[in-house]
């Protein structure tokens, strides 16, 4: 492997380059110089990019940015928006750093009021972790990953636009929350029971929780999209282990996202129910209560550490390769180490809970797994260091940031090992040691991503940034960073989250505040540099970097709308573009190595139907959700605020539902073409259609969402006492029969969906419509039966339950209503889809489509909802 002279992305592993495009280095041929990836190699001239932009307005038009579904545009939107949130979160940080200039005793008001301080600290954390870090990374992922894969766009371009608009809407919601009696002020971890209305009754608190929930929905949609894309649209020859390192890191990131964020979504939905409906999951006296939150939150929260760090790591690896001029040492092991970390990240979450009441055995176990997860990171760090030692390093701005990130991460990583030891954690928990540690890791990651911004800036804009200002930015940034965060290690005994600290720590606090301002200032240099270079920067050409080897550098900067002139392929060991025979024109005389190739598998005119790139509906849907959530967030224990405010919120919510619903319908009816690539690597989902892959990946995350709800129920019941739960908390009026009837209804409706599919295959329109209508009626019957049952239980008046058995009665009622309620919402959504299918089937759709039938995809969802009920029935009715 080490004798392979080429970086395996433009030239996959194990395949010697045959085109003479390499310049073996003196140290044994490890220098990478991929043909077609460097500036002087001409671009393919086989087929001209079609000039028209497929009904997409030009980039100079504002309208373009509201309708675009192109991955590069959306990447830019993500990057710009996330940088705005960097400024937002950074400003909040500066506010509380000013407060910390001198200690303020509890009860006294400093620069900020106590409540404002708590909001600033909490929202700073939330903004930086959620609204800045991941979206910043996913801006690059959106832009670069399809290019590195050889794809023309993501698998579901409109869903990609929806992800972005949900993200922006969630950010707007968070901003609005400040003006609703104050935002969430209980810390970014939102620990229970501080997060419930008893302690944080303001509407803004609920809006902030809903904002985060919407953000998570955006992430889930994005994960499904990226996973489908990355598993089904890789250029021929680009097997998973040959993926460029940035793409590999993103692939692992989205896998972690898919499962981890589902657990957070469950936690946030439950918290929303506690705040909006008045369920009592996280109430002080609730069985499990606060521990339940920590489990759900940290089961997400620890993978989240790697979710935000991996893209930075992948970008660092690419930048290291480009600017050391050699392939990453131990590339294969580096990828294996990332895979290990991704797996291990799901078995370390309880190290965040060493100071809770969980037992010592499990703490010891999680200490061991935590030490274990540091080992693959050691390998990655050494791989990067060794690459530098063996490389011919050029300290350009991207490399300075990547190298700086490595140094910071080493400090952050080592100080984290201390926290992983139970005994030491008893001292360190809740102190500035933790704060300093995770800022070295997280902002270390930011450092790598800032390097990525400089690295891909010429690709995205077509212009070079100013190198001197870039280096100046790094110098100021690095000094500011360490002035800000290192003092926090020194005064580690300082408890975190509070502004009332020992006067002995004041000089260090002041040093940190000075550092914070220097760090913030450094970004002004960056914004100036990147802004000015848009106009005055030198033309970047296809690649300004001499040793860049991944496919994004093989096309123009910025790349044309559909990226490549044909179907990208690495079949012959280097990048080429396939086209049908007869459509390939002769190469230019100086024939670059990247060229057009005739491929017999492609029929002339295979791409006659042009891909769509514009849809306004994702934006409309997101705006609808924004208003709906604003209305929803105002509800407290099932009641709207009184007076005009309540009416306004009600109106906003209703408007939101209307806009969102209309948008979804129009989006469904809109003809939008996202063509399948005829030739691509699809492991491990060969032979499964794009849509089916997407549906199953979504269902996998829904399994975790429902599983977390059911798990929460099991956890609380276990804590309360499994077998006395039924007797102590549930009235005898709660009987099995309604559950049994609903089981019958749902099972029958599953069967009728199967019959609809059978009828579709037999091309029977009447059969399809009749089966679907039966499904609809059965589903409606299910919901009516449930409504009657709930109404009955709400209204029982017995000595044990004088006020009925309502949401807020006890843990059993809370878990019963919420878990079966989430299921009922799934049924309701399924019935909306059924109605849509009936409407279309009436018009003669879906007949005879044995492969890729919408009824089948809907069936997968509907049967899943059925399966969930098969477990809810015994758990909530029988046992």
């Amino acid at each position, binding site marked *: 492997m080490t004798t392979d002279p080429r970086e395996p992305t433009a030239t996959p592993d194990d395949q010697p380059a045959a085109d003479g495009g390499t310049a073996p280095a003196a140290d044994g041929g490890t220098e990478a110089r991929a043909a077609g990836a460097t500036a002087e190699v001409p671009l393919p001239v086989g087929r001209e990019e079609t000039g028209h932009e497929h009904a997409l307005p030009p980039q100079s038009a504002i309208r373009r940015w509201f309708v675009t579904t192109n991955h590069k545009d959306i990447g830019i939107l993500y990057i710009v928006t996330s940088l705005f949130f960097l400024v937002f979160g950074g400003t909040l940080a500066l506010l509380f750093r000013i407060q910390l200039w001198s200690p303020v005793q509890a009860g006294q008001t400093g620069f900020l009021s106590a409540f404002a301080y708590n909001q600033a600290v909490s929202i700073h954390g939330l903004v930086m972790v959620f609204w800045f870090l991941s979206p910043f990374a996913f801006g690059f992922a959106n832009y670069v990953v399809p290019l590195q894969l050889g794809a023309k766009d993501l698998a579901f371009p409109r869903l990609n636009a929806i992800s972005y608009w949900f993200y922006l809407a969630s950010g707007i919601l968070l901003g609005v929350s400040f003006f609703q009696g104050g935002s969430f002020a209980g810390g970014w971890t939102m620990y229970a029971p501080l997060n419930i209305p008893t302690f944080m009754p303001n509407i803004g608190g609920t809006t902030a929780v809903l904002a985060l929930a919407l953000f998570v929905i955006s992430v889930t949609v994005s994960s499904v999209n990226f996973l489908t894309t990355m598993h089904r649209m890789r250029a021929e020859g680009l097997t998973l282990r040959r993926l460029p390192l940035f793409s590999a890191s993103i692939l692992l990131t989205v896998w972690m996202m898919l499962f981890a964020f589902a*657990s957070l979504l469950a936690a946030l939905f439950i918290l929303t129910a506690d705040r909006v409906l008045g369920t009592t999951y996280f109430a002080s006296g609730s069985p499990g209560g606060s521990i339940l939150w920590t489990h759900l939150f940290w089961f997400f929260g620890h993978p989240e550490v790697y979710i935000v760090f991996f893209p930075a790591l992948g970008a660092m690896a690419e930048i290291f390769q480009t600017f050391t001029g050699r392939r990453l040492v131990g590339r294969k092991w580096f990828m294996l180490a990332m895979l290990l970390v991704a797996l291990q990240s799901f078995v370390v979450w309880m190290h965040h809970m060493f100071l809770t009441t969980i*037992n010592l055995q499990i703490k010891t176990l999680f200490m061991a797994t935590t030490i274990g997860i540091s080992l693959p990171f050691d390998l990655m760090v050494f791989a990067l260091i060794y690459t530098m030692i063996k490389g011919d390093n050029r300290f350009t701005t991207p490399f300075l940031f990547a190298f700086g990130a490595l140094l910071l991460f080493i400090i952050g990583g080592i100080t984290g090992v201390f926290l992983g030891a139970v005994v030491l954690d008893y001292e360190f928990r809740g102190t500035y040691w933790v704060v300093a540690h995770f800022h070295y890791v997280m902002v270390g990651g930011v450092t790598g991503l800032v390097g990525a911004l400089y690295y891909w800036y010429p690709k995205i804009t077509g212009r070079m940034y100013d190198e001197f200002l870039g280096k100046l930015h790094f110098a100021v940034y690095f000094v500011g960073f360490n002035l800000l965060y290192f003092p926090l290690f020194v005064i580690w005994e300082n408890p975190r989250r509070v502004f009332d600290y020992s006067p002995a720590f004041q000089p260090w606090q002041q040093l940190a505040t000075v550092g914070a301002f220097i760090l913030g200032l450094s970004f002004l240099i960056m914004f100036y540099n990147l802004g000015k270079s848009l106009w005055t920067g030198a033309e970047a050409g296809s690649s300004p970097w001499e040793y860049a080897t991944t496919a994004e550098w093989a096309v123009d900067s910025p790349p044309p709308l559909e990226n490549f002139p044909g179907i990208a392929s690495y079949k012959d060991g280097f990048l080429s573009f396939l086209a049908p025979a007869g459509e390939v024109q002769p190469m230019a005389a100086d024939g670059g190595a990247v060229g057009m190739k005739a491929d017999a598998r492609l029929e002339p005119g295979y791409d006659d139907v042009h891909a769509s790139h514009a849809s306004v509906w994702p934006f409309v849907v997101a705006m609808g959700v924004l208003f709906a959530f604003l209305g929803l967030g105002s509800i407290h224990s099932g009641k709207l605020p009184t007076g005009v405010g309540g009416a306004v919120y009600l109106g906003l919510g209703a408007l939101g539902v209307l806009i969102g619903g209309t948008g979804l319908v129009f989006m469904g009816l809109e003809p939008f073409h996202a063509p399948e690539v005829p030739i691509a690597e699809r492991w491990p989902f060969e032979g499964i259609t794009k849509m089916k892959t997407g549906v199953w990946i979504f269902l*996998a995350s829904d399994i975790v969402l429902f599983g977390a709800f059911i798990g929460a129920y099991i956890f609380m019941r276990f804590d309360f006492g499994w077998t006395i739960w039924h007797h102590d908390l549930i009235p005898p009026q709660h009987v*099995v029969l309604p559950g049994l009837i609903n089981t019958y209804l749902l099972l029958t409706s599953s069967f009728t969906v199967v019959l609809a599919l*059978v009828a579709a295959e037999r091309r029977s329109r009447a059969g399809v419509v009749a089966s679907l209508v039966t499904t609809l009626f059965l589903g409606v019957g299910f919901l009516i039966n449930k409504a009657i049952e709930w109404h009955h239980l709400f209204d029982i008046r017995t000595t044990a339950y004088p006020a009925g058995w309502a949401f807020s009665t006890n843990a059993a009622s809370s878990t019963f209503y919420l878990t079966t309620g989430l299921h009922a919402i799934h049924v309701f959504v399924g019935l909306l889809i059924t109605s849509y299918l009936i409407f279309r089937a009436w018009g003669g759709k879906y007949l005879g489509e044995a492969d890729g039938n919408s009824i089948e995809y809907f069936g997968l969802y509907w049967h899943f909802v*059925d399966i969930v009920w098969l477990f809810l029935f015994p758990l909530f009715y029988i046992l």
Partner: protein
Amino acid sequence: MPSTKLYAAIYVVLFAFATLQFVVEQAGLLRTIYWTAFAIIIALSIVKAVLVAGWYQHLKFEPRSLTALVLIGLTAVLALTFAAAYSIT
């Protein structure tokens, strides 16, 4: 793909098993041998789930990667549930 007959047979089994779960409860087994009855009821649910997933959702006839995907999600959430429950013993 299975025949309509097989789909119908599976439906009958699902229906019968749901009824059986109800019968186990009505017979009062939960009052006498709770954990045995618990095991029977949950086992019936698992069999029903496998039938629906395997045949109605066609997992049996799809590449194993989809089954693996489902099992990964299931494993993750079972690990969370059992580890969380164990942690408070």
